[in-house]
Structures are given as structure tokens and as C-alpha cells.
């Protein structure tokens, strides 16, 4: 450097008179444009909180056989138990307090959905980035596998896998990951292909940065937005898929009832007029999935680069 005195030469350009604004703050303010979406996010937060705090807020531990009495079976909403407390949402066929069962079921449904989502994102993201950056044969091979996978219904794939693997939370998570990674791989590849051609990636190459650094520090952070959107919607799908599988009896064991299993258990009582055993878990499932999807929709609007100023 021969001269570091700028004052005599270039005009210091006045900075934009705006408070330092991080992408996160901008994102939050954009998200809050829709009241409905804020409501959905709050509702979702409450649902997650309830699921997390289940042992402390559920009136009864539905897994504790000492508390559950078969004599309380199939009580309607509002009925009193033998021990004198109220079953606000009634009881199921085994005499469990339905409200507690739903709270615990929510906990299982959500954790299965989120765990499978996170693992599927990691797998899909890696594979998608690899495809986009490597190109050629590798890309072709990966994308054909993705195409084949996406052409089969997810339920079918999961059913086949569970038939082979058997029951259990770990098994269903594996099945859901395998049924879903392809969505993420396709999403990441599509945005990575676009980002790869941007001039800032060429600039990074000029600056002698390593391939790993370019892929993970430069390209990946710019592919996260669509991934978040797809991730939210896919998590809702995963929860619904798990419920479907449990309803069909191939998902979780009876000892760990998720919402789907509760619905399935209650289904046989529908015709005898004991609607609550199936309907309340169903409503819980519906509210959960709709709120996740509404959050996802708003995220898509906010994070869509074409709609950004």
C-alpha cells in the first residue's frame, strides 16, 4: 500500500441512513406482516410447548398402568373418574384420560416428525449439494434415484420399509427419512445450481478459496431459505404420514400411542356413538398440521427471493 489517505482522493460515499439491519430482523418484520401467520406461529409455539412439557401439565400419566383403570373406559367428556377428577375430553377404550393421551401423543407425533425431518434435511442437503457441485455422471445418477423415489407415493415406500423393519419409533423415523430425503435433495440442488452461477461464487474462486469453503460457506447459506420452507411443509407431511401408518397399524407400538394410533383406537367406537375417542385426537392432529402449514406458507412468501425488494 503506498497511500492510505482517502480523504484527498475518492469522496467518501455517505452510508445509507438506515439503522444496521440484520437479515434476521428484516425476516421477522416481514413475517409479522400477516396477522394470520403470526397467530399460526403462536399456536404452533403453544402446541410445541405443551408437547415438551407433557409430564408436568398432563393431568394423568397415560402410560402408568397404576393410574389407569379399566373401569373408567369410554367415559364421555366431562365425566368424573372413580378417584374424583374430571376427564375433560373423556376416556379411551383402556380407561386413559383422553386429554393426557393426546398431549403425550402429540409429543410422540411431533418428535417423530421433527427428528425425521432434521435427518432427512441433512441427508438430502448433502446429496443435493454434491449433485449440484459435482455435475456430470454423479449428478445424473443421484437425480435419477431422486426421480424414481419421487414417482412412488411416500406411504407406499414407508409401508414396504416398515413391513421389513418392524415396529418402533426408530424404525418409523428411518422409514420417514427414506421416504422424504429426495424432496430436500431436489430443492437444494435446484437452488445450488442457481447460486453456483452467481458472480460471488466466481469471486470466491478468484480469491483462491477452497471448494469446501465455497460450497459450505458461500453456496449453502444461500440455499437455506427454500430448504426452510420445504422443511416446514415436509414436517407436517411427516406427521400426517406417521399418523397414517399408525392408523394402518404398522407404525408405532400400542405402548407408545401417537395421535394416529389414538385415532385408530377410537375408530372402532365411532359407530357406537362414542365419537370423542377418535375425534379429539383427530382435531389435535388437524390443528397441528394446519398451523405448521400456515407458518410454512408465510415463510415461503417471506423467503421467496423473487418477492424480496
Amino acid at each position, binding site marked *: *500500500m*503506498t*497511500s*492510505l489517505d*482517502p480523504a484527498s*482522493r*475518492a*469522496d*467518501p*460515499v455517505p*452510508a*445509507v441512513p*438506515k439503522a*444496521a*439491519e*440484520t*437479515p434476521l430482523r428484516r425476516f421477522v418484520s416481514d413475517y409479522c406482516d400477516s396477522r394470520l401467520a403470526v397467530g399460526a406461529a403462536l399456536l404452533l409455539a403453544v402446541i410445541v410447548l405443551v408437547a415438551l412439557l407433557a409430564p408436568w401439565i398432563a393431568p394423568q400419566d397415560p402410560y402408568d398402568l397404576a393410574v389407569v383403570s379399566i373401569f373408567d373406559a369410554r367415559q364421555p367428556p366431562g365425566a368424573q373418574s372413580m378417584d374424583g377428577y374430571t376427564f375433560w375430553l373423556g376416556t379411551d377404550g383402556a380407561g386413559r384420560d383422553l386429554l393426557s393421551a393426546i398431549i403425550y401423543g402429540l409429543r410422540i407425533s411431533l418428535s417423530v416428525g421433527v427428528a425425521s425431518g432434521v435427518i432427512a434435511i441433512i441427508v438430502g442437503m448433502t446429496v443435493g449439494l454434491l449433485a449440484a457441485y459435482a455435475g456430470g455422471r454423479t449428478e445424473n445418477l443421484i437425480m435419477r434415484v431422486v426421480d424414481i423415489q419421487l414417482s412412488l407415493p411416500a406411504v407406499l415406500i414407508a409401508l414396504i420399509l416398515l413391513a421389513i423393519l418392524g415396529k418402533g419409533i426408530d424404525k418409523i423415523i428411518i422409514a420417514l427419512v427414506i421416504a422424504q430425503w429426495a424432496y430436500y435433495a431436489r430443492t437444494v440442488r435446484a437452488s445450488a445450481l442457481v447460486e453456483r452461477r*452467481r*458472480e*460471488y461464487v*466466481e*469471486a*470466491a*474462486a*478468484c*480469491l*483462491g*478459496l477452497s471448494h469446501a*469453503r465455497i460450497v459450505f*460457506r*458461500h453456496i449453502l*447459506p*444461500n440455499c437455506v431459505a427454500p430448504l426452510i420452507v420445504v422443511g416446514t411443509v415436509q414436517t407436517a407431511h411427516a406427521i400426517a404420514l406417521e399418523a397414517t401408518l399408525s392408523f394402518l397399524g404398522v407404525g408405532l407400538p400400542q405402548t407408545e400411542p401417537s395421535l394416529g394410533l389414538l385415532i385408530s383406537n377410537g375408530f372402532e367406537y365411532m359407530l357406537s356413538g362414542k365419537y370423542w375417542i377418535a375425534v379429539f385426537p383427530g382435531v389435535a392432529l388437524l390443528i397441528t398440521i394446519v398451523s405448521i402449514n400456515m407458518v410454512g406458507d408465510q415463510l415461503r412468501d417471506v423467503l421467496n427471493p423473487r418477492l424480496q425488494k
Partner: protein
Amino acid sequence: MSDAPLLALEDVSKRFVRRLDAAEKIVNLLGGNRREEVVHAVDSVSLGIREGEVVGLVGESGCGKSTLGRVVAGVHAPSAGKVLWRGRDVATMSGAERRDATLKIQMIFQDPMSSLNPRMRVRDIVGEAPRVHGLVSGEEVSDYVDAMLLRVGLDPAIKSRYPHQFSGGQRQRIGIARALAVRPDFLVCDESIAALDVSIQAQVLNLFMDLREDLGLTYLFISHDLGVVEHLADRVVIMYLGRVVESAPAAELFADPNHPYARALLDEVPRIDTRKRIFQPVKGEIPSPLTPPTGCHFHPRCPHAKPRCSAEAPALREIAPGRLSACHMNDG
């Protein structure tokens, strides 16, 4: 200024091939006639740039000037030919030597929106490479970034902001600071001011001239704007459809262009100091680089074309000391 070129291109070509996809291969099996599309973006270009020189590279869309710039900057590897940095072939370099050559040649891009990573703060955009390459130590990075920002006329207080918070001119300055941070000797400017407003263009052009004076930088200045090139360049190279058609010292070229395309180009440029004239455009369109004309690429539009021009491509030869032109008319 030494006589040996700082950077030299020897018969550099760059081809882009679009291979057939599976569907097209099936069409061919069924008797279709699909071919691979090959674009000769750069066709056997030789060029030497001396230390401290500013070379202007001029041409219209599809002439390969941006591709040539990217070959020089090391973003694209040439399909054929050699890029020599201080007399050494870049392709045969390895390890530290190659890294040094990479860092010494930096590029300033056209689009101030897409040339900065939107997810990074200014301090990381400018400071990342010097830190990674160990040009400055961890605790010095912050001061170093400040110095770079001052150098390009920006207030260091802005360094924790993101690119979207700046105007086009400011973003372009950040891109220049990023390049300067790895202490380059050579800048490739690819239409670096084309996207800016006129008054901002002048600011950035002046910055380029100051940097040249203060840091002794050498430039390859790629532009479609002849006025800008005339203002800045010592020597001007004109490309048409992948080939160099004329190369001459700026003053001589603008006073007396030799190649018919160079002449046409100079005539067409609207200039603020020659106005309300009658436009007398060259006829015809710029041919597609996918199917360039035979012989001299310019012959379908050339007012002086002879039968020979469509049969044989003219060689780029010296017509006066320091002046090269590729036209059959020079053969007398």
C-alpha cells in the same frame, strides 16, 4: 515498466459444449439428427499485457470478451492454449505458486447485486480471503478491512452491514475492496461500471485511476463502452465473435481505426461531443456464435468484403509497430 509481459495469452481458446441429453440421444437412435452444440466463445487469442499497462477489451455481445476475462482471472480454464503469468504457465503451477498467481489476478464484476454474497457482512466479504490465506493475522483483520474500505472511499463504520443495505456504487466499491484485500497486481474489470448511474460511473472510474497510480496496478478493462475505454486504456483490443480483429495503442486506434469492424464500431458510438449527426449504421445483425460465418467472421456485414473474405480467415498481423489487425485488405 519492463518489456516482458506480466500476463500473456498464447493461442487461448475456450469452447463451451452442450452435450446431448438422454432424450436427444434417443431421438438420434430413432433417426433424428441432433448434434452437440459447440460455442467457440474465444477462438485462438494471443495477447500480452505489460506491467502497469491498461488494456481495454472492446466488443459487442457474444464476442467472447467476458469469457476471455474469466480465462485470464482463472475462473474458467482454457480449452486450448496457455495463460502465462510472469512467463510461467499457470496450468503447470502447483501449490503455493499457483495460489499466489491466483491471488495476484483479481476480477471486478459487472453486477453489483450478485457479485457480493448476500448472506455475508461486509467485514467477512472483504476479510475472509486475507484471513484464510494468512496474509494478515487474526487480530489484524479488523484494522486491515478498515484500511481497505478507506482505500476505496467507504466509511469503515459500515462493515457490519449486509450488501442489500448499499447502493450500486457502494456495492461496487466493496467488490473492489474485496479484490484489493489479497494484494493483487492485476485487475480484470468485466463491465465493472456498466450497471451504474452516469455520475457514479465517474466516481468509480476515478477510483480505478487512483488505484492504478497509487498501487501500480495493471488492468484488463473489458467494456462495450468505447468512451470509457478511450478514457482509461493505453491499448485497445477489439474482439468480434471470439477473435481479436484489431489491437492498437488507444490514441492511434481512435484516430485511425484499421479494421472495418473497428471503424464501424467507432462510427456508431453516440458521443456527447459529436451530436445530431445522421446515423449510418452497419447493415445486418451480429451472427450467432453457434454458427459463425466462414472465413472472416465480419464479412457478411463488411462494406469491403471480397470473395476471399468468406473463404479464408485473415490472420492477425502487424500493420505498423505495435498495431495488429486481422483484415485481408491490409495485404494490398
